[in-house]
């Protein structure tokens, strides 16, 4: 009797040791397959979202400081150095190019526009389109002197530079006053000490000279107090 009880206990113990097979080993049901697909989809979407957040389309303008076969370094209008990567998909263009235009045609001091993918982490732009462009040269300051004979004006800019502005026949001059608003004006209406904004093209040979395309004068607003002393000195 004791032997029987002992063997029964042994059998019970052994049966307890038998482990149930793991769930994944079982034949996958349609519900499991859907779950698996959903998880994979979520992972893919998360990965793509992270990628999109890291990279965005951007367009910059800069002056070339150095060029290699794979990289262009430019200085943007804030004075920051920007690194532009170039690959086989990058397209180059220039309005003055007669034939094919490539990276080897880009030289130092050229102003270029870059459209590409900006990586927020590396702060580099992978260029897709690089084009040589001309940007307007805009100055703001006070009228220091007027040369009626040569149709030019001397402007002291708000950062203290002295610029000679040539006024051509094609130059459009406007005036702004509280009463009359923004109206067409002319060279004869420009007076000393007027607040002035000039947009045009800078002279390649002389950095202190420019040709005006558009001029806006403000007869009711004096020149910046910062440059008053400079204007007085020039007018003496």
């Amino acid at each position: 009797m004791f032997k029987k009880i002992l063997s029964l206990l042994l059998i019970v113990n052994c049966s307890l040791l038998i482990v149930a097979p793991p769930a994944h080993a079982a034949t996958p049901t349609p519900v499991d397959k859907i779950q698996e697909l959903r998880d994979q989809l979520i992972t893919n979407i998360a990965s793509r979202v992270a990628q999109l957040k890291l990279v965005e389309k951007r367009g910059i303008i800069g002056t070339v400081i150095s060029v290699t076969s794979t990289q262009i370094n430019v200085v943007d209008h804030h004075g920051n150095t920007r690194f532009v990567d170039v690959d086989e998909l990058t397209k180059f263009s220039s309005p003055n190019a007669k034939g094919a235009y490539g990276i080897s045609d880009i030289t130092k001091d050229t102003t270029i526009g870059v459209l590409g993918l900006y990586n927020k982490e590396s702060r580099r732009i992978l260029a897709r389109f690089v084009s040589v462009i001309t940007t307007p040269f805009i100055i703001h300051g006070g009228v220091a002197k007027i040369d009626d004979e040569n149709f030019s004006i001397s402007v002291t800019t708000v950062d203290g530079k002295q610029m000679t502005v040539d006024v051509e026949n094609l130059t459009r001059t406007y005036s702004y006053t509280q009463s009359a608003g923004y109206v067409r004006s002319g060279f004869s209406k420009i007076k000393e000490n007027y607040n002035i904004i000039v947009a045009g093209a800078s002279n390649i040979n002389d950095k202190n000279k420019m040709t005006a395309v558009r001029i806006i004068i403000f007869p009711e607003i004096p020149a910046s107090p910062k440059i008053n002393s400079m204007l007085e000195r020039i007018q003496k």
Partner: protein
Amino acid sequence: MKTEKLILSFIATLLGLLVAGIAFYVFQATKIVAPSNTKIISLTTPTPMPAPSVFLTLDRPKDEEVVTSKILIIGGKTNSNAVVVVMTDSFEDVITPTNDGNFSTTTSINDGQNIVEVTAISPNGESATAKRTVTYSQEEF
């Protein structure tokens, strides 16, 4: 006898120090320094630069933004009494902000990169400028 000697020497030292101190005080009080030997050091406090009377915040467009529409809205905030000048490659406009300083204007831009320069000028001539690069492109990449 030995104690008396010690007390006497202690008193003599004290007297010597007192006499030397009085002599030094009299010497310092009566000393005359020639004007050529004197050096005047004046401490000048730097005058703080006056804060500019005009401010400019350009909310739209964002710098280096790529847009797919040629119509561009330029907007921001400045002093309510300032005059705002908007200049792009082919457009210029002078606008006055609302009473709360907000301003907005619409312009059309060229293909590729465009520079948008906004200047706010206060009635006393002071100014603030903001510059943005905006690119028009419909290329997919």
